[in-house]
């Protein structure tokens, strides 16, 4: 049972690609080996910036011989058929066997493939893996045709057992596999030979290479934490950066540095971002001051001066970077204190989307929307509008120009510097939230107003120009925006009538789109421009619209959508609401509310009020989970089915006139009484939005309905009784419809 060691030694592999590459190498090789008839006990892939390695243990030395039998044509078959069989098997007529079968004598081909040695198979599989390796980006170098992530220099491929090690015979475009590699680029550059994985790993360690990325990772964590602890600091967690750091070094040497006093007044986010983006430093926080006061850089080398030169150099580079940041910060503060007028003006020059105008246009729309939404979220309309006008100004600041990921964060600092109320400043920071599904949802009214306006404008904007997500394509992150709206509304229990928002926001976006369309010279577009100045209401019945639609459809299909959004927002709004409902189902599924329950609720009026929808669905979901739930559902459905069949057969609708005086049995009378009691309760509870009470009231119908169906035959020969019973069923259906469309619920 030999062990296999593979090493692909190259120039520096990008850190972000190493983890995938390890997995790909393991998969390609082990799949290939197994497919070729070998088995193995375990396989482990490792990497450093300069090497991908794979250790396969307990590989079989030979693949099993394969014997394959194929039945051919009868021996008296036409010559053509026999020739075809020979071609397909690669045998000659003499090599075929003749066997007597029931229907006569038949040719058989017996193909025997002997077992193959592991070296031959490994060579084949490894060459294929190298040639087809799925790097996200690969390159050529020199004059060769080979592609790899960066130039590939050498290959180790050895099979080793008790008897010794054997190099796998393989040459790929001039690189011949062997048993030698090199250590650390600077500390141990000489080549050395290895006899197997243990020898390889041990010698690499001596040659200052830590092969296992997990070991490098934990070494960095430990050493960084220890060094920070010595100063009473703690390392600011950053998993993304940590993973990258382990992929940038073969021999991690964390060094701790101190940030100069003159930079400590910079916002901590600026320090952290600048150090991370430019220099891949970990930040160290002083828990006593809450400030970031130090950094850890992870060097790749041990030096005679214990890293003093390296640290001094890094410190200098950091000082230059932070001087830039301080320069941006001070300039930005000056602009902020003077009212941010330049930035306001500057937003006109920033395109948001070619069809939706500039960031300044967008701010106008968001401001109007924030004002509109404000009462529903408990914010002051004037302040909400002001907050919306301030929220995007930092996009023009030098700091955000340098570090786009600081948008919002800087907005808050600059709004504070401008002397604006804290709530406005907080809204500038928080209006992008929530971004991810685990992101916190803002709760301050002003932040909620601007955050909602921001996301709703995005949604209505892209819906107005017909740029909706399709399949896996969602370039404008509209699903995320929709989820953001849902979480903002539900998290704050807001009663927001979305259609109202859509009807004002869609035309506003369409107007922006029209003015952009009209900026180009064509005659059609000029017509749009002149038309778009007329208020939408007057245009609805304007004959010109019809002509315009026609022309637009011919000229540019998307202009038609824009026009619909402008003049007939209902169509687009309905589509957008359906999109939000889809996202809502996904969101609620994670909270245990079934999609069919939501569908049953969405069929009710008010489905554009998401909080209402969820309250209804929650109560309904709970009721369906109680003892009465399933039976009640069955009863309601049975009533609806019998009614539907009778209505179809008779061609009439049974909806009115059930009369207790035609009640023939106690069960009928009891059902009349129960409905008389339940209907007003359900209606009142629904009006009061006391959904649990409504559910309790309808659940009280369960027993009378069950008893009714148990004892009474609806379709009796007595037409008067039948009609009365059908009308009674329609009262059951009606009671259900007060709550939801139970027909949509499965089960």
């Amino acid at each position: 049972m030999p062990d296999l060691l593979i090493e692909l030694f190259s120039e520096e592999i990008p850190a972000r690609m190493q983890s995938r590459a390890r997995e790909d190498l393991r998969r390609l090789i082990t799949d290939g080996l197994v497919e070729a008839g070998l088995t193995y006990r375990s396989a482990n892939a490792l990497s450093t910036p300069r090497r991908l390695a794979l250790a396969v243990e307990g590989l079989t030395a030979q693949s099993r011989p394969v014997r394959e039998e194929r039945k051919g044509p009868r021996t008296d078959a036409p010559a053509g058929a026999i020739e075809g069989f020979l071609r397909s098997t690669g045998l000659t007529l003499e090599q075929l066997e003749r066997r007597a079968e029931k229907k006569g004598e038949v040719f058989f081909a017996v193909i025997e493939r002997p077992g193959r040695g592991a070296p031959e198979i490994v060579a084949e599989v490894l060459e294929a893996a190298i040639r087809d390796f799925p790097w996200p980006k690969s390159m050529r170098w020199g004059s060769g045709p080979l592609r790899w992530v960066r130039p590939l220099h050498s290959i180790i491929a050895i099979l080793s057992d008790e008897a010794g090690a054997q190099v796998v015979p393989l040459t790929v475009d001039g690189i011949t596999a062997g048993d030698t590699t090199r250590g650390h680029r600077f500390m141990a550059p000489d080549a050395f030979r290895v006899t197997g994985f243990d020898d390889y790993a041990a010698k690499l360690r001596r040659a200052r290479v830590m092969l296992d990325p997990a070991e490098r990772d934990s070494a960095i964590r430990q050493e960084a934490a220890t060094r920070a602890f010595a100063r009473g600091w703690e390392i600011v967690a950053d998993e993304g950066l940590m993973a990258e750091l382990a992929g940038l070094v073969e021999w991690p040497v964390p060094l701790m540095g101190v940030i100069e006093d003159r930079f400590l007044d910079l916002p901590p986010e600026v320090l952290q971002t600048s150090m991370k983006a430019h220099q891949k430093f970990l930040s160290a926080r002083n828990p006593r001051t809450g400030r970031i006061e130090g950094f850890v850089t992870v060097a790749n080398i041990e030096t005679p001066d214990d890293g003093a030169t390296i640290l001094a150099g890094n410190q200098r580079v950091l000082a230059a970077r932070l001087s830039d940041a301080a320069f941006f910060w001070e300039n930005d503060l000056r602009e902020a204190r003077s009212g941010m007028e330049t930035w306001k003006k500057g937003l006109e020059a920033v395109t948001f989307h070619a069809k939706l105008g500039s960031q300044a246009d967008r701010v106008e729309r968001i401001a109007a929307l924030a004002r509109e939404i404000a009462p529903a979220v408990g914010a002051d309309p004037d302040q909400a509008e002001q907050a919306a006008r301030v929220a995007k100004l930092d996009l023009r600041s030098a700091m955000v120009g340098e570090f786009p990921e600081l948008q919002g964060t800087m907005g808050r600092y600059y709004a504070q510097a401008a002397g604006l109320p804290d709530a406005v400043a907080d809204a500038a920071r928080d209006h992008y939230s929530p971004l991810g599904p685990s992101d916190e949802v803002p709760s301050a009214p002003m932040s909620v107003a601007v955050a909602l306006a921001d996301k709703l404008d995005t949604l209505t904007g892209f819906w107005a120009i017909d740029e909706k997500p399709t399949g896996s394509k969602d370039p404008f992150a509209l699903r995320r925006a929709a989820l953001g709206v849902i979480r903002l509304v539900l998290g704050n229990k807001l009663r927001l009538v979305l259609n109202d928002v859509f009807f004002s926001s869609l035309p506003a976006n369409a107007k922006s789109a029209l003015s952009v369309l009209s900026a180009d010279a064509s005659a059609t577009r000029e017509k749009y421009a002149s038309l778009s100045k007329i208020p939408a209401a007057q245009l609805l019945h304007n004959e010109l619209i019809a002509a315009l639609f026609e022309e637009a459809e011919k000229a540019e299909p998307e202009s038609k959508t824009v026009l619909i959004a402008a003049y007939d927002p209902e169509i687009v709004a309905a589509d957008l609401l359906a999109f939000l409902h889809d996202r809502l189902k996904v969101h609620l599924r994670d909270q245990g509310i079934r999609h069919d329950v939501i569908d049953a609720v969405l069929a009710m009026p008010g489905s554009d009020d998401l909080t209402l929808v969820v309250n209804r669905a929650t109560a309904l979901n709970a009721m369906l989970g109680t003892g009465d739930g399933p039976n009640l559902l069955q009863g309601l459905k049975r009533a609806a089915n019998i009614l539907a069949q009778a209505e179809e057969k008779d061609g009439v609708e049974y909806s009115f006139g059930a009369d207790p005086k035609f009640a023939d049995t106690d069960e009928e009378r009891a059902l009349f009484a129960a409905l008389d009691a339940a209907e007003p309760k359900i209606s009142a509870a629904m009006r009061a939005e006391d959904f649990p009470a409504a559910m309790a009231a309808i659940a009280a119908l369960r027993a009378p309905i069950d008893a009714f169906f148990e004892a009474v035959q609806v379709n009796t020969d007595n037409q008067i009784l039948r009609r009365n019973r059908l009308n009674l069923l329609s009262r059951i259906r009606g009671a259900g419809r007060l709550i939801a469309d139970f027909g949509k619920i499965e089960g």
Partner: protein
Amino acid sequence: MTSPQTDQGAGIADAGARATPGANGPRCFQDVILRLQSYWAATGCAVLQPYDMEVGAGTFHPATTLRSLGTRPWAAAYVQPSRRPTDGRYGENPNRLQHYYQYQVIIKPSPPDLQDLYLGSLRAIGLDPLIHDVRFVEDDWESPTLGAWGLGWEVWCDGMEVSQFTYFQQVGGHDCRPVSGELTYGLERLAMYVLGVEHVMDMPFNAPDSPIPLTYGDVFRQTEREYSRWNFEVADTDMLLAHFRDAEAECARILQAPAEDSAGRRIPMAHPAYDQAIKASHIFNLLDARGVISVTERQAYIGRVRALAKACADLFVTTEAATGTTPGDVA
């Protein structure tokens, strides 16, 4: 062999320490350049002189852009003055200049030991990789203006980017076969680091003990101020727009000229046409600095320059400079 170590225990507080101490290190800006020149000359590169036109980077020199095309082997090194009008800071920013120098090495096909050759050049200017932390950090290079891209790294020394290291994959829309290896050093930044200077204008240009010692500022402070003003405030944009169109038209006209001259000799004119593409590119940069190019127009302008560069590349690959073999080279 290691450099003498005089910086023992300098530690954290001594942030301004010279990156590389030692009597053998370079003493001034021109020393760094001269050492690079000697080093690359010794490796066998033809040491060329700067191209005599305004360019944004050393890559624009035809010795790189055009010579990286075709099959003919090539090895050249040169200093290239580079102009980036938008980076002008009136000579006040310690690290930013509208006119600076790049050192450029281009070798085709890229030799297998290019990384080692490069590290040798760092040693030559006093950066010993046994004391410093030299790292190759992923950085893919792309020039939308030249229709070019490649894979490689930025080379970090103690956390500072000191060079760009690229294996060209495509130039002017043509696949590079063979692949050229390109090294670009930002000379001012590199020299400031080696010399331990905080502000570019304070950097000694010639030896500090020369009879007339000159700093970088003595040479360039005034020009930085003058060009910053001209770039940002004065350059005549209407005229520049006209020049852009002229360069574009002339480039096209040169490329459309018949391959044969009046005497019937085949003389395609890839280089004169490429000069016009360079010119258009620089004029675009000037217009950009004047703030007259909107975001949407930007892409269109870059596309126009790229079209010129590609057309020049298309012509160049048909010429002897691309397809021939160097004298003495056993093809």
